Structures are given as C-alpha cells and as structure tokens.
C-alpha cells in the first residue's frame, strides 16, 4: 500500500520535474541559443525568426533560452564559462557590451566577448504622432531652438542606443532636448502615442509596427529603409548619423577557430535567405553582414564612437 502510494507520487514528481526542466533544458543535438534578456523583446523576436530557418537549413533545433539580469550583464558575464564546443551561442547587443563594462566592473569586458556575427540592427529614428505639428526634422530643430530643453523625447533606457543617438544629434544640430528613459521600446512608444512626450527616439521597427499612427522624421541609415521610401535619412538632411541597436551572436572564448568559422558561415547563410530578409525587413529591422573576419574592425570603430559620446555626456567617466 505504502509502496504503491510512494510509486504513484514519484511518478507525479517526475512529471512535474519534466515540465519544469523543459523550461531550461538543452537536448542532445540541439544548439542552445541564450538570449541575455527576457522573452518578448526585439532580441528574442529576431532570434525566433532565425530559429525556423536554422532548423530548415541545418536540421538541428535551435533552442532559445533566457538569462536576463543586469541589463544583459548576467548573461555576458557567464558566457566564457560555458562550453565552447559550438553547441552554445549567445546573443550580443551594441551599445550594451561597450557601455556596461565602461560604467563599472560588471563581470565581463567588451574585448572578452567573442562576437562572430552582427546580423542586423534596428536603425535609430525620430518618431512623432501622425497629427504632430512637426512635418519635417527641421520643424523639430526649430522648435527645440526656440525653447531649450522644452522638447521632451522618450526613449528606451539610459546610456542606450536611443540615448546615445539623442546626445549625438543634439550636438550636431546644436539643440538641447530633454530625454526621458522608459523601460523598453513598448513603454516609450506608449508614452509617445499618449502624447506624454513631444517626440520619440525610437527605431524603424516602431514605424513598421505603428504604420499610419506615427510619422518618422528621419532614420539613421546609409540609404532609405525599403519599407519607408518616403522617410529621409539623417545623412540626406546633412547629419552624419548612421546607427542604432546592433544585434549579433557570440561564442564562448574557448571555441576553436574552426567552430567560429562554421558558425559565422551558418548565420551568414540564414541572413542571405530571401524569405528571412523579407521577414526581418517587414519587422522594420535592417540587415547587416559583419562576419567573423570583419568583426575586429567593426567593433573598434563602434567602441571608439560610443565611448566618446557617452563620456562627453557624462554617462561614463
């Protein structure tokens, strides 16, 4: 009787455990793709889009798991302690991996993160609501000049891509705007739509989602985004600004050169797939192809720029 009872309960325990484990497990042949943020953000969404293409092209499952904490720091600090056999990869974000270690000792360094591919970015954009008096970027600049600090702009996070773009643009246009940091792009967009703020430092992805409800005044790209042929780039308007929130993937530092090359080629192959490109572009993302061989140069250029802007604004020492 007692044995039967215990057997029954053990079975139940195993079932419960199985359910629990599925939340954090990795299967034999699958690849563990760790996102250092919670589910539902743009890092998660772009990884989810890669997920189905990876399975189709390489046969194995790409299992996405999350290790949020400290604005990504918890994940990146753990990266180099993971197995470098190529079965574990981790999402990487710019400017985060440059700014965080420059603020304080957060358990990882920018150079210690071995990014092997930067596959896309969400270009910075100034967004206003559809019935805003600002028709052009110049309207916003004129208004900001007439009332220093009075133009209030929402954005996602402090010392973030949005914040650095605001600092940089204020300097270029010789204006002074007030930046209000929100928790994530969703909250910052809600503040814009509810007209709690005058304009938003957002991304092209906001324009893609919000459609006719908003107007983008300019986007920080080399050429216009295919989804928004009518929105000028900052460059066209005379401001040399190209950038946004970059997303890439890294391997633990113990990974062999061969593993790095294999992975760089795999992500490049997914990036080249027209169906993948179309999904990403419709989401407002801009594709990028910085593979392992070009990474050092790209990172050097970005790091110098971020640190200079952040230092000038007093965000880091």
């Amino acid at each position: 009787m007692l044995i039967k009872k215990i057997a029954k309960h053990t079975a139940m325990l195993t079932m419960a455990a199985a359910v629990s484990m599925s939340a954090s497990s990795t299967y034999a042949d699958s690849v563990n793709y760790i996102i250092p943020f919670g589910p539902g953000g743009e890092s998660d969404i772009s990884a989810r889009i890669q997920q189905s293409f990876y399975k189709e092209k390489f046969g194995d499952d790409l299992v996405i798991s999350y290790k949020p904490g400290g604005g990504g720091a918890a994940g990146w600090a753990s990266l180099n302690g993971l197995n470098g056999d190529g079965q574990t990869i981790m999402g990487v974000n710019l400017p985060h991996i440059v700014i965080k270690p420059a603020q304080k000792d957060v358990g990882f360094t920018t150079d210690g993160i071995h990014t092997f591919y930067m596959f896309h970015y969400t270009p910075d954009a100034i967004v206003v609501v559809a019935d805003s008096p600002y028709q052009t970027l110049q309207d916003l600049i004129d208004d900001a000049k007439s009332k220093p600090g009075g133009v209030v702009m929402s954005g996602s996070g402090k010392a973030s891509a949005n914040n650095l773009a605001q600092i940089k643009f204020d300097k270029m246009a010789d204006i002074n705007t007030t930046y209000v940091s929100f928790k994530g792009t969703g909250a910052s967009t809600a503040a814009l739509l509810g007209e709690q703020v005058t304009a938003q430092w957002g991304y092209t992805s906001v324009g893609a989602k919000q459609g006719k409800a908003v107007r983008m005044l300019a986007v920080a790209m080399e050429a216009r985004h295919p989804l928004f042929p009518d929105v000028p780039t900052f460059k066209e308007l005379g401001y040399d600004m190209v950038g946004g929130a970059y997303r890439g993937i890294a391997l633990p530092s113990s990974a062999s050169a061969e593993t790095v090359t294999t992975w760089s080629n795999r992500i490049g192959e997914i990036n080249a797939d027209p169906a993948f490109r179309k999904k990403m572009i419709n989401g407002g993302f801009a594709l990028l192809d910085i593979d392992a061989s070009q990474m050092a140069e790209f990172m050097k250029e970005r790091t110098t720029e971020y640190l200079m802007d952040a230092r000038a604004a007093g965000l880091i020492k």
Partner: protein
Amino acid sequence: MDFGNFLAALTPLNLAVAMFGVVAGTLIGSIPGLTATMAVAVLVPISFSMAPETALILLGAIYTGAIYGGAYAAILLNTPGTPSAIATTFDGYPLAKRGKGDLAVAIACFSSVFGGLVGAFALLFLAPPLASVALAFGPVEYFWLSIFGLSLIASLSEGNLMMGLAGGALGMIMSTVGVAEISADIRLTFGSHTMISGFEVVGAMIGLYCIPVLIDMCSTGEKHLKITGDVAKMPILSAARITFNSKFNLIRSSIIGTLVGILPGAGGSVAGLVAYTEAKRTAKPHQRFGEGEPDGIIATESANNATVGGGFIPTLVLGIPGTPPDAVILGALMVQGVRTGPELFQSNGSIVYTFIYGLLIATVLMLPIGLIIGRYAYKSIVTIPKAVLVPTVGFMTIIGTYAIRNSISDVVVMLCLGVFGWLISKYGFSASPIVLGLILGPIAEQGFVQAWTIGAAVNNLPGMFFGRPLSQAIIAFTLISLILPWYLSRKKQIKVDT
C-alpha cells in the same frame, strides 16, 4: 466580427488547441516559479507551424490557464504560483488550513472563469475605446497607482502598522539593488557581480512564502492541511453559490482587472492586489479578510484572469504589449509574418476576431478542466505523506527559481530569503509588505523619475504631479482607502467610550 469568425474558432483543431493550451497552462502555472510568461515562451515554438489564428488561440489559452493555475499553489501551499496570485494566498491559504482547500480551489475556478469572460468580452466589444485608456496613463499616473498599491500595506497589517511599513520599505530598498531599469545606474551591489542582476521578484516570492511553509511542515507532526469533507468529492455547488452570491464583488473585481490589464506596465499582480484592497475596504462587518474570507479569493482570482483579455486590448489595438506574456505573443505573431500594430484589426480582422472567440471558448473550457485538475491538485496535496510532499515541493521551488533566469545565484538568494522569512514570521512579521515593496517599488520609482523629468522640462512640477485629473482621482482613492478604516474605527471607539 461576424458569425463566420465564431464558427472558425469552433473547428476541431482550434477546439483541441484551446483545450491543450488550458491544460498545459494550468499545469505549468501551478508550479511555483513557472510563470505565465514562461509558460507561453516555452510553448511558442509549437505554434510556428500553425495558422496564425490557431497559434494565437493556443498561446492565449496557455496564458489564461497559467494565470488560473497560479491559484493552486497559492491556496494549498501559501505560495503564489505566478505573481498574479499573491493576494490569493491572503485568504486562500487560511481557508485551506481550516480544511476547506477544495472549496477554495473551486471558488478560484469559478471566479477565474467569470473574470476571464469579462476581460474577453471587453476585448470583443470595447477594444478600441479602451485602448485609449492605456495611453491616457502617463508616468505620473503609474507613480500614483503604485502608491495606491502600497497603501494596501496599511490594511494588510492592521494592528502592527510599523512592522508593515518597515517590511514595505525593506522590499522597496531590495528592488533598487542591481542595474536600475531606466537610469542604468548600478546600485547597492557592494562590488558583487551576482548582485548586479538584483532580486528576482518571483524567486524572492517563492522564498518568502513557500520556504517558511516547508520549514513549518517539517517542524510539526500534524497533517499539512486539515481535511473536513470527502476528499473525493469537490464541493462544486456550494462553491458556485458562494461565488455568484458575491455578484457585486465579482463584477467590480473583473472590471478592475480588465482596466489594470489594459495598462502596460501594471499587470496581473497589481490587478489582484487592487481588487483585493477594494473588496476588503467595502467588507461587511461579519467578513474577516485575511482569515479565510472567500471574497478575498473571488476578488483576486476574477481580477487576475480579467487582465488576460484586458492586456490583449493594447496588444492587438496598438501593438504595445499590455502584460509580459503579451510581449511574447506579439513576437510569435511577427515570426508568423503577421503585421502587428494599429493596422492589425483592419488588415487581419478575421484572425483577430477568430482569436477573440477562441479565447472566450478557452475561458469556458477552463471551468471543467480547472475543476478536474483542481480536484486532483487538492487530493494530491492532502493525501501525500509529508515525507514525500516536502521534498517534492522543495525540489519544485529550486527548479522553478532556477528556470526564471537560468541562474543558480537566484536559487541561493531564494533559500536565504526563505530562512529570513521563516525567522521574521516567528516575530509576527508578514512577508507580504516586503513583496509589495519589491513589486511596486520599481513602478513607483520609474514613474516618479519620468514625471519629474517631464515636469521640470515644461516648468510645471506641481501641475505634473497634482494637476492631472486622472492622478487626482487615484490620489483621492488612496486617501479614502487610508483614512476611511481609521475614521470608522475611531467612530466606533467613540461610541464605545460614551
């Protein structure tokens, strides 16, 4: 929204998916640590191969099931399975202690279904106008809403207000540890890399609520829960009678849940707490909240399931996730190639309406499924010998805490907080004010900093904090809920004295 969409939701596949979703959601949600967000995120890949409306029905059903499932652990183990069920513990666990756990579980089921239906009907008929409510809520309103939530500490800790306030303050300080969400400062880590991630709310909650119960289970010989009725028989009829006799509470709490669900940045935990406060504030003299009052369970459980439909309103109308699981669901739609945002209703109306009917059907299915699983959950907890129950639950708390952020240090923190929670409970401290501070602290801080920045930029700080009509209404509610009980007890005292 025509009849065709309703029929489309009724296809065998969509029905099967709704049923599977509710079962899976309820099971996952019942395990402490596995939240609704986690339940949805884990099962998202299954939805990729489905048609968009079927995928949505699956995820919506998992979500609503998980919110309900959170009630089991809250009632039977004093541990909220999801943050939404915090206030369920206040009366659910005392009721279970008195031997009426099955009644509490059944009441939770009826209330959840009712609340879920109210939320889903609001989504069906009132989505566009209600979405504008989400936008009217600015930073300063979030600040005042969280202050209103914190005022619950006063009513939670009657008799020892100072202890309650101390706990709330401790929770708020704990919430500032680590990287600050909107200012990016790194605070109170004392040089430790582990503390950069800060306290994880769900893990802390498991520690503070569940571990003391486990320790107490070990320290006494008696059974974990008393059994009064027949274990094999669920008191369905009396549960239904109790639930639907509280019509007013049920409807008010469901409306609160729907409205709070609409606000991105609030969520099920806040909805449950606000509804509980209101139920307690309007209690009749014979009702004893905190000692197993069914109205406490009814308020929380109807409100938190109403947030599901409410949360889908900004998600589907504006493309702005109302709650964290909504963010995951929006992401799944993007992977499907469906354009989300304001154009979703126009360009993909049939997907949206089929989904809303699917959500309604899933909510109705939750009644039989919830009662069956609920009975099994109750039966297992009361009949399993303690020698098996304690390690099982202990194991689940560890796995659950680990799974939230794949972090071992979260488990260590959870265990330490557990021992701490057990110690303070021996001195009459309650864990709830700490958890309230932990949850509401960041909302208050962010709202305050943002409102101050904007107010200073437009040179009108007083107008920003006190001049907006919505804020004034919330401030008025807060004052009423703080002053009224004090005034009433004063009046009673004077009567006694004279």
